[in-house]
């Protein structure tokens, strides 16, 4: 076979090879995103995502969407503008959460025996699905950043509330009131995570009484818009073909 001859001999074979490529690329993309996104999120979200006694109404709500909209925006940029595939955000977040669940179950529980009910990951999937659909329907980076970024921030807290609410039931313990999540953090000893490291309920947002979570979510949504733009451009830059072709597009 010479270099000018095709590697496939029929359309059926071409389709088969194409699908094989699909699965290979999808698997590679999934695992690469899982690794990269996981490291990124653990470094930037870290303890806010690890422990229930960090998941507060202010900083967790604010920080988690801002630092997690990064890879979804970048992968969307690649998959949408190159392939018109509106799955970048969902694929990224599924990869992240699969990685997180492996980590929490194998490491946090399997190695160090923290109960899973103290160290489960945050749920980022509702925001990711909406982000993908907005990109598909609007076919616009600006619209996705503004509407999608805002929705990503706003959906985070209500999307997690059904999971964390039972752990916010109060308990009286030796004369002090705390939530069950606080009690988990106290009971299950973390030698390297003393209580003062927790960044919960800190800040100057005091004029909204107990209804601080929606305000935090709005703020998170606004910042997520900016971060979306930034990482969308990162994604576009990485999706260039300059590295492999002379006639780069």
């Amino acid at each position, binding site marked *: 076979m010479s270099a000018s001859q095709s590697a496939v001999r029929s359309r059926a074979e071409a389709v088969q090879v194409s699908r094989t490529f699909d699965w290979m690329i999808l698997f590679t993309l999934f695992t690469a995103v899982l690794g990269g996104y996981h490291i990124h999120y653990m470094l930037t979200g870290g303890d806010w995502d690890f422990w229930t006694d960090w998941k507060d109404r202010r900083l967790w709500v604010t920080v988690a969407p801002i630092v997690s909209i990064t890879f979804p925006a970048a992968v969307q940029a690649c998959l949408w503008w190159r392939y018109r595939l509106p799955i970048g955000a969902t694929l990224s977040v599924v990869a992240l959460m699969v990685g997180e669940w492996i980590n929490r179950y194998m490491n946090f529980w399997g190695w160090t025996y923290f109960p899973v*009910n103290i160290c489960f990951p945050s749920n980022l999937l509702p925001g990711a699905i909406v982000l993908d659909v907005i990109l598909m329907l609007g076919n616009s980076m600006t619209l996705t950043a503004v509407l999608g970024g805002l929705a990503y921030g706003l959906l985070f807290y209500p999307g997690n509330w*059904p999971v964390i609410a039972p752990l916010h039931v109060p308990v009286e313990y030796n004369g002090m009131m705390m939530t069950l999540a606080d009690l988990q953090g106290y009971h299950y000893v973390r030698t390297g995570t003393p209580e003062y490291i927790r960044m919960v*309920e800190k800040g100057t947002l005091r004029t909204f009484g107990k209804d601080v979570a929606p305000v935090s979510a709005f703020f998170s949504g606004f910042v997520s818009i900016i971060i979306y733009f930034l990482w969308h451009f990162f994604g576009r830059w990485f999706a260039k073909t300059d590295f492999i072709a002379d006639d780069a597009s």
Partner: protein
Amino acid sequence: MKIIKDKVAKLSFVALLITMTAAMFYAPTASAHGEKSQAAFMRMRTIHWFDLNWSKEEVPVNETMTISGKFLVFAGWPETVDKPEVSFLNIGIPGPVFIRAGSWIGGQLVPRSVSLELGEVYEFKVLLKARRPGDWHVHSMMNVQGGGPIIGPGKWVTITGSMSEFVNPVTTLTGQTINLETYALDNVYFWHAVWFAIAFAWLLFWIKRPLFVPRHIAVSTGKADSLISAGDKKVGMLFAVGTMVIVAASMGATNEKYPVTTPLQAGLLRGMKTYQMPEATVSVKVDDATYRVPGRAMQMTLTITNNGDSAVRLGEFNTAGVRFLDPAVHEDETAYPDDLLAEEGLTVSDNSPLAPGETRTVEVTASDAAWEVYRLADLIYDPDSRFAGLLFFWDENGNRQLVTVDAPLIPTFI
């Protein structure tokens, strides 16, 4: 020749793989907490733990034990470590092998951080409930914001039984008694499973069709719009609206199911009750102090004055949790960890009773392998080469008094 080189290269690669694989199978349990690696000056000049007691050496799962004692927040706290204005009484154990059922400083529960005063002594107690069987090194520990973990003495404790039998019952303010070990776990799995299912459905909707090669060709040839059909958009709308409806409905249902919830609690506890040690009537001046590297011995020249009304003798020098005793004066009866106890490690040139009003200059030698084993000798490589510790004197009636010492240390290498 090339064939031989190739074979050697291949075999080397195989050997490397085998070595790496073998290394993966050897993963011994980590049983220490880096207590020996912490800078010696930090252990000697920050928190001095004493009168420690581990109530049990063996404890079955679900049973409790306590660590109790006192700690002195050293007045000569090093400048290179932040002051203990925000601190947390912790326990050095390898993960939650025990749960911390309670911890108290001066009788006050301290689930939160506390502010400590330099030069004060505090009494503490930690109640631990056994959870995971094994032999565990259990340390007292104080985390200091800006200073890091300051680990105290550790003792081996054995937990027997089965972890599957461990329960952690808690009664909430809404009157429900739950097992915190497994509480709400089904709920966590359920909601994550629901959202994973929805996300996988969305992904499956797209990846079941040809993906990268044909779609890239279409986009490159200007036919990108043909790749998203009206049906795709309808399905997308369904997913977006469905997502928002599920989020709203689940939140509403959760609020109905859990009408009473409170925010996470946080704060700093100030004004902790201190422990009043008996007033010291002995004063000690350190004339000089040297550490003899080859002999693993620290020698101090002390000028001791007894201002009390009863003769006293020096019985113990305690630094970084290592206790050097003069058995003629004091013997340990608390089953203190062997590796931290030099039962005959303290020698005083003249340890006859120091009469009231008398001043005497003595050579005090604290020698034991613990200097090396606990890497306290590394003090000479620290940025602030001073030593510090607690001296305990006993009078004729068995009363004890505590005096702190803090002075420069000069190493001798010959």
